[in-house]
């Protein structure tokens, strides 16, 4: 039998890592690739720096990381990281990342996206990747505006936001990404803000460790087209960074939904976290059941059995 993709002999990432004596953990210099093309002051710089820190802290190797994105300012991300990267279509990072996750259990799969990419053009995939609980981490850098195309209304723009497509102020009700994620069955839903680096790092780490689809909604200010959008969530700008109370039961879906629904600036931290079998595991189980009848046989012998019935 050839090497099965869903049962890779390469050690799965949630198995204990072997001791790798000769290799030291990567330094920030080794992880960084192109200098980011973002505008000075963009919130995305902070998230990139914390992704580097995550790789450094958790001693991840270049070759074990896949950094995947769609289209938008946020989605330039893979070019700035020394890892196996893919810059895919607008809105389609999640199904692409699902293809990686389902065929290679030995890899870390990180997808980076923006509010337009994840919730507008890619909205359908957000729903279905979450409900299937495909193992990966999705970080959405939400600036509540289309930045790359220079200031159009986004699906998270608040009512009244003046953009080039709503010069009189946005009229469409914005979506609440965390509520949506909980409602469609995501098993890890957290909210953070680029203005609070320690919180971002802790959230990304918890997301990475979650065995399932983990969604991190990260506020990330666009200083060019929506300056001051998140001041109310930034204590340095006179706002309040309200962390979810320690007493919150992260497995309580209704409580999570309520916390996620609070008016802006809302709450930060892990709203919801439950353990459900991932699609990855379910597919492996399907394979094991199917293969149990063919133990020790080569692929051509299995196919021969099928052809013998087609005579």
């Amino acid at each position, binding site marked *: *039998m*050839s*090497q*099965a*993709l*869903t049962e890779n002999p390469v050690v799965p990432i949630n198995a204990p890592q072997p001791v790798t004596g000769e290799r030291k953990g990567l330094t920030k210099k080794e992880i960084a*690739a*192109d200098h980011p093309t973002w505008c000075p002051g963009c919130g995305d710089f902070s998230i990139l720096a914390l992704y580097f820190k995550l790789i450094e802290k958790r001693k991840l190797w*270049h*070759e*074990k990381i*896949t950094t*995947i994105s769609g289209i938008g300012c946020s989605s330039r991300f*893979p*070019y700035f*990281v*020394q*890892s*196996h*990267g*893919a*810059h*895919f*279509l607008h809105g*389609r990072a*999640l*199904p*692409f*990342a*699902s*293809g*990686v*996750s*389902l*065929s*290679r259990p*030995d*890899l870390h799969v990180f997808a980076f996206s923006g509010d337009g990419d994840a919730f507008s053009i890619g909205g*359908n*995939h957000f*729903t*279905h990747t979450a409900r299937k609980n495909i193992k990966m981490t999705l970080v959405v850098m939400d600036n509540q505006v289309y930045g790359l195309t220079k200031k159009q209304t986004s699906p998270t723009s608040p009512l009244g936001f003046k953009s080039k497509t709503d010069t009189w102020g946005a009229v469409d009700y914005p979506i609440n990404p965390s509520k949506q994620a909980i409602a469609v069955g995501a098993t890890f839903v957290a909210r953070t803000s680029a203005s609070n680096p320690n919180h971002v790092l802790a959230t990304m780490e918890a997301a990475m460790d979650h065995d399932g689809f983990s969604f991190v909604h990260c506020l990330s200010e666009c200083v060019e087209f929506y300056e001051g959008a998140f001041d109310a969530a930034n204590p340095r700008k006179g706002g309040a960074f309200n962390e979810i109370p320690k007493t919150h039961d992260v497995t309580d879906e209704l409580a999570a939904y309520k916390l996620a629904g609070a008016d802006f600036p809302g709450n930060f931290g892990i709203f919801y976290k439950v353990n459900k079998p991932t699609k990855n595991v379910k*597919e492996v189980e*399907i*394979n094991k059941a*199917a*293969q149990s*009848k*063919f133990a020790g046989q080569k*692929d*051509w*012998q*299995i*196919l*021969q059995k*099928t*052809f013998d*019935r*087609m*005579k």
Partner: protein
Amino acid sequence: MSDTVSDAPTAGGAKKVSRISEAVIRIAGNSQDGIQAIGGFLARLAGRSEQEVMTFMTIPSTISGGPSIFQVRIGSGEVLTSGDDADVLLAFYQHSYEGHINSLKKRGVVLYDSDHVTPKPEWENDYRHVGIPISSLTVEAIGGTAKDKGKNIYSLGLIARMFDLNVTKLEKLIGERFTGKDASILNNALAAFHAGYANSPSNLLETFQFAESQKKGVPQVVMNGNEAIAFGLIAGGVRFGAGYPITPWTDIMEILRRELPKYGGSFIQCEDEIASISMALGASFAGRVAVTGSSGPGISLKTEAIGWAVMAEMPLIVINVQRGGPSTGMPTNIEQSDLNIATFGGHGDAPRVVLAPANVEDCFYMAIEAVNVARKYSVPVMFLTDQGIATRIEAFAAPDLEKVCQDITPDLTPVPAHKPYDLSASDGVTQHVKPGTRILDGKYPIATGLEHDEYGHPTGSPKLHMQMNAKRRKKLQAFGATLPVPKIYGPPEGNVLLVGWGSTEGPLCEAVDRSRAAGDSVSSLHLRHINPLPNGLENIFSGFNHVFVVEMNDEGLYGYGQLGAVLRARYCEAKIQGINKTDGLTWKVKEILENIKTKLRQ
């Protein structure tokens, strides 16, 4: 069946026993009568009897019911098409009888269910009528009202009697079909079969015996085109796929979903067409050629991602089981109108490989070729079949699976350095290292849809855009140069050359045979590689006065079908003309012959 060899001595009361080398049987009823099952049994029996066989079916696009036919042509010699006209028409209803009597040869036998069909006196001279109360005899045989269930198997018994088919083999086939089901179901089926077979041959006017097959000793497998593709992909080493249901592609995804787990692979049903090609590309990026596929509108939805695969140079197989278009079009009809979208679909300059298998056996081997071409040239491969070949059953020599099955497990050995888009690569041919591979110089690649430098990082450089466009073009030109000049069917020089592609190979070859038998100078050329085209076609064209490109698509604004327009653009050859139709049905040989005559008069 026209080639009756001799009249054998009368047996068992039948008026006449004729030895035949082939027969065309058309079964007409409604889609829920199980007529496909009869056809399937006959096709499998032919396969096991080392005969050639080809089937043709139509299905309504309604959810349940509606007229439907299944035609099967069985031959002891070569069978190229499912046959223009039937020798025997089995008609279950008045509409089946009236709607299909025209497809019967003059003096052919119409076997009708006299419970439902009232024959028309004006047709009784032209066709030999045999009325049998199939519905009530089935009920008599297996009891119950059963809403006409079982009359298909009863009819199979009738046909078995009429053509002196091998009863033991048919019983075995029926047994295999109902394996795992309740024993009473199998017993009922066998009871219905024997009741049909027990019909006195004297009722049947004439019975037939097939001549010995000319290809004794060759074990065969029997399957339709969709099955051949699915198993070809598995043999080729594909272990991941993703798709969304749409007719007539769906069978392939159902087979792969069921079969791939046996091989440690997975086929994922996605939320939409775009997600499926994206997921397949993710899996290809992750290390092994993946497959997606669709039909009609689904292909349109995938075109953006195909452009990405061209730009990112990602291997991928896209199966396109063509149906009538545009838009929702004619979902269960045959058409060859996706050559343009397969070859040119999408924005920008996006060269990709387009393959079109010519028959069911070719579906199997060409699927393996698609895997290897996609891998070698790191390019998306469009695999064009159509509704006709998808559902057509053929028997072909059983492949030597130990030899053809291949393992394409990714190699994750560390490399010193890697440029995914190395411009110095010979003929522009490069492959990606797979994620999980350590790159010792610490520079990791990006697969991207942006124009890029050799590492996959974005560039706005006009020079690099031109170089990368040339790289993506040159590798396909290099592939084109490896293709053998296709063989001409018939003499290499003459008056008329018919050019076809995809599923029309059989009717074209038969058109050549019949033309030549009538003294006309006609040959044919069949293209399986659509993009790039093989070299050397101009030399072939130069040997003929007329080149007629026969396609099941519209003649277009300027009078040429889709392949015809490509060939004219490529060769600037004024003698290339089109023979086109879009009636949603496969070419009948006589239609091709009539079209040749009309074209030659023009």
